[in-house]
């Protein structure tokens, strides 16, 4: 195995709880994964599972309590400022709400060129030329350069945000729910663009989404997060076809399939409870909602262990002594 492009190791981030003396909430708890060059890793989970915090930690927009984020072996979290600047160039992000991520008082051209200016790269003319080239690449026209973000639709703003993410020639782009707010046909257009530029530039992607349908369609691997932890990680098609964690299974069964012969509302899988409520530190985080819980689940937190080559899950059902059947 070559050295991974990105390596996240036992990263932890907690935030102060509500009120004075409130307990700290672990938003990301001991998360680790790798990303190879040219690979797309999906990060899926529900609101509050920590996927956005994790993506901010990867970008070094937040400092972790502990753990490492390494790009080609260099620890981002302990890098000095000059090194951090270079590392930040190599990893870019595209947000869900593209319009609010663009500066409303800058033209589209200036928005796209801004990262270059901030990094002190090139001259005004060369930055402008580069911005124009990227504008064409993402499917917009030259004359759009002088217009302002509010004049564009959601899909077009996302194209602008993608052009801006590309201008520093990064190695990695994080897409944080980048297509979630778009209509199906626009979503398909943007996904197609995202896949095309990946091919063209050999980019690596982290694709954060709550939509497993999108993840399965475009990702090599997927990591499923629940309450700050990765509970399952593996090849996207394998995880979606034969999940090894009851939470992944529950997520999959809750997704309505666009075929009334196979799925009606009566067949939608329901799981009890919700994610609100304290997590017991020495129990599986999914224990209180899991339909398959048994004795060990409340005693200790299951570790993320390999269940097949390249496929890991954090569930006691997978350990050999508990042949209760594959979840």
């Amino acid at each position, binding site marked *: 195995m070559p050295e991974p492009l990105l390596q996240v190791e036992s990263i932890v981030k907690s935030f102060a709880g509500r009120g004075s003396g409130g307990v700290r909430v672990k938003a990301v708890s001991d998360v680790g994964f790798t990303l190879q060059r040219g690979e797309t890793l999906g990060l899926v989970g529900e609101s509050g599972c920590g996927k956005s915090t994790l993506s901010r930690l990867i970008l070094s927009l937040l400092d972790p309590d502990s753990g490492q984020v390494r790009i080609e072996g260099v620890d981002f979290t302990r890098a000095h400022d000059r090194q951090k600047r270079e590392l930040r160039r190599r990893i870019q992000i595209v947000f869900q709400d593209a319009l609010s991520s663009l500066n409303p008082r800058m033209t589209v051209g200036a928005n796209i060129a801004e990262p270059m200016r901030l990094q002190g790269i090139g001259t005004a003319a060369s930055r402008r030329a580069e911005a124009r080239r990227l504008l064409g690449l993402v499917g917009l026209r030259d004359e759009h350069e002088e217009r302002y973000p509010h004049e564009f639709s959601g899909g077009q703003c996302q194209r602008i945000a993608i052009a801006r993410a590309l201008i520093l020639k990064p190695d990695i782009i994080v897409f944080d729910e980048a297509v979630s707010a778009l209509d*199906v*046909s626009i979503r398909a257009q943007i996904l197609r663009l995202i896949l095309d530029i990946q091919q063209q530039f050999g980019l690596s992607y982290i694709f954060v989404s709550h939509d497993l349908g999108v993840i399965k369609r475009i990702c090599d691997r997927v990591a499923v997060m629940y309450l700050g932890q990765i509970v399952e990680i593996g090849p996207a098609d394998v995880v979606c076809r034969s999940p090894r964690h009851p939470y992944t299974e529950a997520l999959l069964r809750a997704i309505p399939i666009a075929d009334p012969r196979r799925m009606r509302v009566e067949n939608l899988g329901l799981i009890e409870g919700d994610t609100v409520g304290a997590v017991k530190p020495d129990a599986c985080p999914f224990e209180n909602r899991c339909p398959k819980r048994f004795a060990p689940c409340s005693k200790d937190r299951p570790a993320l262990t390999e269940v097949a080559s390249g496929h890991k899950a954090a569930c006691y059902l997978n350990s050999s002594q508990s042949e209760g059947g594959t979840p």
Partner: protein
Amino acid sequence: MSEGADAGLIVENLRTRFGSDRAGATVVDGVSFALQPGRTIALVGESGCGKSATALSLMRLIEPPGRIISGRVLLDGRDLLAMSEREMEGTRGAKIGMIFQDPLTSLNPALTIGWQISETILAHQPVSRAAAEQKAIELLRHVGVNDAERRAHDYPHHFSGGMRQRVLIAAAISCRPKVIIADEPTTALDVTVQAKILRLLRDLQQEMHASMLLITHDLGVVAAMADEVMVMYAGRIVERADVDTLFHNPGHPYTKALLACATGIEDDRGVPLEPIGGSAPDLRHPPPGCRFAPRCSAVQDLCRAQDQSLRALAGGHEVACVVVEQERADA
């Protein structure tokens, strides 16, 4: 009234326009349908196609400069569009319950949710405040809010997204409406919460024998919930079919394109994404003839020459496409 008494909701040639006569856009352009008691019709289409404007028109909640320019909306044999505003106030919430996408903005942040639900009850039923509040607690319990008695005193921001949607549903069903209009009721929710809310909506609908107009762009939700589906494009209904026909024998090229570009969980990696080229027309200057013609892969000269209206292909299946009509006639 006898004939129309249980006919459900009948909409005839509804047209809603924003802006002036000369420089405006007809965002709902001749929509007609009949929604029978106990049935669910899904209205599908992309942002800006007129789905929500249709829903707001039915409730007469279109704000100026928008206005309903023609049509009839019959409920219990009475035309809602011809009612006085006062009569309409008695109908909204009582006979038609509405659930919106964003429960946080449809709830008042400064009032407890128990108070807000009882407001709806008090507006339509001759009961005391205390009785209304008691009813509100029962409704909250009914829609699955735990510890309803205590939670009725909480404010909207104390609730999660899914719980807020339950609160809104409780308010919408408080007067046992005959019609429920649900506009993207689960779009902002996580899938596991969505599954619960969809199940709740279906159960309540069956229990009340209400009809439901479900507005969504999620084809999975459509497949799960609808009896019948209407596909809307640029202000017009371009296809109407029972749910099975729509998914397994769609007629209109737009419907086919929508189905092809959906990223469902059943599709594998490597299945090519098939976006629809171009974008929806500017309704201030709609293209002549079929409005989908500029983006349609099956387009013929005929399509641009004449307006396409819904025509029956087979029992209950209507499509506004001359090309498909000819194909099926030849087959």
